[in-house]
């Protein structure tokens, strides 16, 4: 783990050794790495299930696994990817590591709480893993009642408990970030000097704090109904399953923004650094993050246009859904405008940023289709929706996560990753992603419902295309795993600021010292003032 050449200077990695020094650490940087290991594990678990799903769908009759197994695969794919990978991904790894550094703080406001958050994720994850190994759960990640409460004979309780516990991990991380941004900024670090990454994480934290508790109580009620017959949603008692859907989506729609807002924050950093320009319309991009966080709470009913929710509620939610599209569009326009007359580098993180903008644009624009009442009635619960949210959550959030990981890898580890391989993998992922998910838009409009184990034969060609793309995508995702590990030992030693970036995290050594800065930085410039930093120091050829 410890790069040999960095040993002379004390840093957060060599300050202490041994398992205990990691498992009891209060250092936000080490906790960030703990999260990195944990969520990478869940990413590959979720990925393995996705692979099996795609292989199964090669043939319409569904011969490889039984329907029951197939249902468990897509359920656990969703649970692992959403609750144990995407939600913690950027905030808990990159946010944990860099948010305090970007605002010039020694640590988060509550380091012990931060460690507790990681343990909660691990405990929640163990519950979910236990459920998977014990026999799995087959309700879909949405846990719709009354199927999840009364009819499913699978490990609903263990899985739901796991999500409940992991939810508190997310809540406490959000709480920690909010307090840190309010109370821990370095002298001179005013709100409008904050990097957009911090703004995005602040907005994300608001959602985590305001939304997640509602999921928690919904899960409590679900468990009560399944275990104790306290039937809040039970139609047999006159309860309404649609109420469950309201409560579930009150969290689970904003949860999409928990995944994508931090991604937007990362992209703002990448676009700025690799075009050596301040983000066009900084304040508007900053406010649009908060606007997305707020408006994101008003639109959950668009998941329920055909749920027997009232006709008029459907219209209100459709209207509000279009309103939340606007701040996202504004961000894309501002990023693009930032490139104008910039000094654009093709370093790997920038390739991921381009990929993000492309895929997010498609994901966002297809969002207009599913927000549209007349079209959503046809495409909801089909592969169109599957494709749409994968464009946002995989094309958007994971592209940004990988871009951010490449960007900050030198800072986190003190080593450079191999540039050529990295560019290659970025290209493969972009290509593989589109091959996998674009056919699903067509499948969806043709009417193939999601969560189908067997399907009519006329859908086979498109499914085979999708599976072929998925195999390319899998290669693309495995490559960084390999060369990142390789780089820990063989990578070039990273300088303090390889990209010529402006953030405070680049003003300290790579890897950073235990308390981030040798002395508390004093901020005198706005974010992204490139006149104050030397140029790029690494030649990528």
């Amino acid at each position: 783990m410890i790069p040999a050449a960095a040993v002379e200077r004390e840093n957060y990695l060599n300050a202490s050794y041994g398992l205990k020094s990691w498992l009891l650490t209060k250092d936000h940087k080490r906790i960030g790495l703990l999260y990195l290991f944990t969520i990478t594990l869940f990413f590959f678990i979720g990925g393995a299930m996705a692979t099996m799903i795609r292989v199964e769908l090669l043939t319409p009759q569904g011969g490889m696994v039984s329907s029951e197994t197939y249902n468990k695969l897509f359920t656990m794919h969703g649970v692992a990817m959403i609750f144990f990978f995407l939600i913690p991904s950027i905030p808990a790894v990159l946010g944990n590591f860099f948010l305090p550094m970007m605002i010039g703080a020694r640590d988060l406001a509550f380091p012990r709480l931060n460690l507790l958050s990681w343990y909660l994720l691990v405990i929640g994850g163990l519950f979910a893993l236990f459920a998977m190994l014990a026999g799995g759960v087959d309700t879909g990640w949405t846990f719709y009642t009354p199927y999840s409460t009364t009819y499913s004979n699978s490990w609903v309780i263990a899985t739901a408990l796991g999500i409940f516990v992991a939810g508190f991990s997310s809540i406490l991380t959000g709480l920690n970030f909010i307090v840190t941004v309010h109370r821990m900024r370095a002298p001179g670090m005013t709100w409008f000097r904050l990097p957009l990454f911090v703004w995005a994480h602040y907005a994300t934290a608001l959602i985590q704090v305001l939304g997640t508790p509602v999921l928690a109580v919904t899960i409590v009620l679900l468990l009560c109904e399944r275990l104790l017959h306290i039937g809040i949603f039970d139609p047999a008692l006159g309860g309404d399953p649609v109420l469950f859907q309201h409560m579930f989506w009150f969290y689970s729609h904003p949860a999409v923004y928990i995944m994508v807002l931090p991604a937007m924050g990362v992209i703002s950093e990448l676009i700025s650094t690799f075009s050596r320009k301040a983000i066009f319309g900084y304040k508007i991009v900053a406010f649009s993050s908060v606007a997305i966080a707020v408006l994101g709470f008003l639109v959950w009913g668009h998941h329920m246009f055909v749920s027997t929710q009232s006709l008029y509620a459907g219209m209100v939610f459709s209207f509000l859904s279009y309103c939340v599209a606007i701040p996202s569009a504004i961000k894309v326009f501002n990023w693009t405008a930032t490139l104008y007359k910039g000094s654009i580098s093709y370093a790997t993180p920038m390739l991921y940023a381009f990929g993000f903008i492309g895929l997010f644009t498609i994901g966002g624009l297809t969002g207009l289709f599913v927000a549209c009442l007349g079209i959503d009635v046809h495409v909801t619960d089909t592969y169109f929706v599957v494709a749409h949210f994968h464009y946002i959550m995989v094309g958007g959030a994971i592209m940004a996560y990988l871009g951010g990981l490449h960007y900050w890898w030198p800072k986190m580890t003190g080593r450079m990753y191999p540039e050529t391989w990295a560019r290659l993998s970025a290209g493969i992922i972009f290509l593989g992603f589109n091959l996998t998910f674009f056919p699903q838009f067509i499948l969806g409009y043709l009417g193939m419902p999601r969560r189908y184990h067997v399907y009519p034969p006329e859908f086979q060609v498109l499914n085979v295309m999708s599976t072929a793309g998925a195999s390319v995508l899998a290669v693309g995702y495995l490559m960084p795993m390999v060369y990142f590990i390789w780089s820990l030992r063989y990578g070039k030693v990273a300088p303090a600021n390889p990209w010529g970036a402006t953030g405070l995290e680049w003003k300290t050594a790579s890897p950073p010292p235990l308390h981030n800065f040798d002395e508390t930085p004093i901020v005198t410039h706005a974010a992204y003032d490139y006149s104050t930093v030397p140029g790029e120091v690494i030649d990528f050829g």
Partner: protein
Amino acid sequence: MGKLPLFPEQASTFAPDVDHLLFFLLAVAAFFTLLIFGAIFYFAIRYRRRSHQELPAVQHGAMTLEILWTAIPFALTMVMFLWGASIYFREARPPADALQIYVVGKQWMWKMQHMEGKREINELHIPLGRAVKLTMTSEDVVHNFFVPAFRTKQDVVPGKYSTIWFQPTKAGKYHLFCAAYCGTRHSAMTGWIYVMEPRDYANWMRGGESTGSLADDGAKLFQDLACANCHKADNHGRCPSLVGLFGSTVKLTTGGTVTADEAYIRESILQPNAKIVAGYAPVMPTFQGLVTEEGVLQLVEYIKSLGPRPAVAEGAR
């Protein structure tokens, strides 16, 4: 294998409308995708980094641009919203003369009941050109009645009725899917919709073993359950007369009123004391567990058949 369909068949009056809206959205999406992709490619090549020390001029943003790229997308989305909402509104409101069919979803099959008494499982025969309205409920979990060629779907929820309607425009055989995940054999909860020329439909309806109309079945059930002991045709029974009930406005003991629709009748059978008609005592026992959802639908149809549908209520829809 080998077939590569790219666009679904259009077989209902909704289909062309939904598809036109789709084309509008596709045009907008294509325009913006090309705009963004084009701009990124152009800028990335035109302004590529030429030296490591390059320092581009500072731009702080431009309010005019920001307002422009806020206002134009917003205006476009409002067009989408209104256009989409108008289709949704039509999809939600079946015409008064629609052919009524009842559907019960259960793990993992669809049971259809025609008014004339025909019953089908996982198949539905309907006449071409006639508006068809399905009143649906579920015996267990949430299902969803989805016919891609008709471009419409609706959840089928336990404990309540939901409605879907369509007017087929092309004879043929179309997929019926359950689109709401409902358990192990969710993907097997499929079927076929047969749209038939009216004459063929009439023949089909006459053929096979027909057990009498749905209302007849309801009447039989009404006798079997001894409902008639209390619900007499005149208003002298212990319970209110059901003649002409459907569609009328009922006064309740609470002082409120309720329109006697399918949901009200269903509730009154399963939970008789939820809404007590003014002037009567809450003496009716519950029939929860004694009647299946299909049976309830038959009773509803029987009660409907007892009186003419008031024209006023239908006109209001």
